[in-house]
């Protein structure tokens, strides 16, 4: 297999895992606004992601770094073309991170409320804008020999916004299943019920997304060329159905795993359709950024492959180990006593 293809796969894995992991952090950050009735509940909700959110966010840094190292041409264009959108994501992520860390550092309701708003917006905005960004990448950007012919508002087209809403709902579903697993005292049941209801909205938007992808993008071309690839979106549909099957039975662990699979396979569905593009041009395919015309040299790709194949499994191993240590969410007693808690 060509090293460009290996890196295309690794690139998609990094993004998919990022969405799977930070996805529930975003969901939890959004839901904290709706499910927490009082300060204790808000605190319990946010502390479920306390031990892990930071490690989750690094998948984004690594996805960005991998884009830089393996496909510098795409990294340069993607980040400068999407300047304003990325800037907003960046500010949102900064506020989310700081808010989680600082919200309980001062004994004041106003202080906490203020940071809770930051957690909410710092979760909702990236969730939405990552969707908008990927929707636009699926659609292609208006670029040619003269560079990029668009602004921030070019990105806010119906298909981009639809993908944004799709992402937000995926993450809300994901986050509510996480909360059903990790909280106690009635909060878990409320989160479970919420997941069961939101699922219908998610299903509806997913259906609209699949259909409009046919009209707004060129993603299906690869699938029509090789029908076996349809297994991936089919798997996504099954995983989406699986969420409901398990959530109805209150088997939230399996429902959460289904939700993980849904996010992974949805990402792969889009990315398979992109191949071999990383960012298609919707003006003239000649100017699309592909894994071949924007990649690093073979030498660099080989070194990076060794690094990735050696270290990414190690990262996964210790992250899984840490998740297991925290498989039961923080107890009320721990949150009350532990001054380091959020």
């Amino acid at each position, binding site marked *: 297999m060509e090293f460009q293809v290996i890196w295309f796969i690794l690139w998609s894995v990094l993004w998919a895992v990022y969405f799977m992991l930070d996805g529930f952090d975003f969901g939890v950050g959004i839901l904290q606004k709706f499910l927490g009735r009082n300060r204790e509940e808000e605190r319990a909700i946010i502390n479920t992601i306390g031990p892990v959110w930071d490690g989750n966010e690094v998948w984004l840094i690594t996805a960005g770094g991998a884009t830089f190292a393996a496909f510098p041409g795409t990294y340069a264009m993607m980040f400068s073309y999407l300047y304003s959108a990325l*800037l907003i994501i960046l500010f949102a*992520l900064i506020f989310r991170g700081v808010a989680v860390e600082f919200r309980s550092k001062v004994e004041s309701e106003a202080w906490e409320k203020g940071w809770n708003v930051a957690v909410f917006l710092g979760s909702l905005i990236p969730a939405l804008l990552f969707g908008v960004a990927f929707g636009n990448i699926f659609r292609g950007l208006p670029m040619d020999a003269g560079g990029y012919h668009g602004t921030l508002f070019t990105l806010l087209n119906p298909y981009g916004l639809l993908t944004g809403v799709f992402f937000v709902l995926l993450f809300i579903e994901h986050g509510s299943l996480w909360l059903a697993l990790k909280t106690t005292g009635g909060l878990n049941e409320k989160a479970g019920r919420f997941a069961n209801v939101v699922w219908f909205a998610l299903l509806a938007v997913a259906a609209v997304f699949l259909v409009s992808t046919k009209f707004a993008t060129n993603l299906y071309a690869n699938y029509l060329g090789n029908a076996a690839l349809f297994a991936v979106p089919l798997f996504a549909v099954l995983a989406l159905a699986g969420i409901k099957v398990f959530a109805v039975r209150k088997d939230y662990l399996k429902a959460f795993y289904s939700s993980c699979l849904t996010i992974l396979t949805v990402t792969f569905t889009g990315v398979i359709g992109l191949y071999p593009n990383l960012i298609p041009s919707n003006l003239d395919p000649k100017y699309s950024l592909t894994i071949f015309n924007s990649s*690093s040299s073979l030498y660099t790709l080989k070194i990076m492959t060794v690094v990735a194949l050696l270290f990414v499994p190690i990262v996964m191993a210790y992250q899984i180990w840490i998740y297991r240590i925290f498989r039961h969410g923080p107890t009320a007693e721990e949150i009350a006593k*532990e001054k380091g808690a959020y």
Partner: protein
Amino acid sequence: MDVLALSRLQFAVTAAFHFIFVPLTLGLSILVAYMETRYVQTGDEMYLKMTKFWGKLFLINFALGIVTGITMEFQFGMNWAEYSKYVGDIFGAPLAIEATVAFFLESSFIGLWIFGWNRVSRKLHALSIWLVAIATNLSALWILLANGWMQHPVGYVLRNGRAEMVDFTALLTNGYGILKFFHTVFSGYVVAAFFIMGISAYHILKKSNLKIFKTSFRMAAAFGLISSLLVFIVGDFHAAMVARTQPAKFAAMESVWDTRKAAAFNLLVIPDPDNERNTVETLGVPGLLSFLAFHDSSAEIKGLKEFAKENRPPVLPTYASFRAMAGLGILFMLLTLAGYIMAKKDRLDTSPLFLRIMLYALPFPYLAAQLGWIVAEVGRQPWIVYGVLKTSDAVSKAITPSQVWASLIGFTLVYGLLAVVDIYLLTKFAKKGPDDDLSVLVGDSHTVRAAGGATWNSR
């Protein structure tokens, strides 16, 4: 201002702000890990209180280091797209490796450390902060190897219209990057040492928690003394490396205009860049500059006039920052030596004047670190990659001045707000001192849970 000037200003602002938090993290992580290790070894609760107290300040600082770091990675693509395209083949690798090898480790185990007090054994808990400390320093290694490459590019060829990596080992063993790494991390240890000594001095002055803060002070003074010696020694080698690899930067650091052999080191120099000379140049030691640069007192030092005007860095900021940094470096050695002796003889609480000096000395290592970066980055101009790519050719073509104005204003406001919050929280918790209620410090069932998690099995 155009996109270039704005982007440079923005990078300077965001990098300088990021580097307020990084040096403290580098050093404090090690000291907190050491404190917790002492707790595990001795079972002495004083060390636990110390760990918790300094750990809390560490975490407040750590959070800002993380969030401001993401900005740096994004900016290469956002504002410096031409740079990223041109050197991404070789520069992207250390950044990606940093995230994979170091940043993951740091960010995963910090979560375990914050929330794991009751969930893992004491030893494993102490191990997790050691992993954070190691990962933080490893992170610095990769970032500084990347920066070292910008300063002294190695292991590449110009091919296919860009710089392509041909020798990864050369990147890893780049003497410039390695010296820079040690110089930077040791300076971070000095920041952490003065941070602990300063806050400890405050509490010793107030006679609060004397035992904890005297112990902290002594620990930090020893660490600071060793580190400030090392930062100076490495700095000497680093300067010699600069003289060999970046002669224009070295000439600017010393404000040397004319090439000369056996150059004197002048203690007092007032540069006059407009007339390409120094107005004042006195108190010289003959041959010393040549000796510092090449470890040979008769060696030739290239003057700025050897370089075309457009290839010279701005002299005044480079020269002044270097002088101030080196002067502060000497001061840090003296202060840590005094601190170590005072602490050793247990004379701290009888020397309020010295304690006050140490309290007000707290910000100076931060300043020295910033000055060091000014020397490194301003002194490299007009190059973004020394001798290979000019800064003016590196900026993104797809962005407009209004976009960068918006982001620059945004960063200034957001970072300004964060700075206020950070200083407020650090001051609040530093003044408050350690928690006395030990039941708050350690969960009641440390051993039970480590043995099998009885509490949860019942749920």
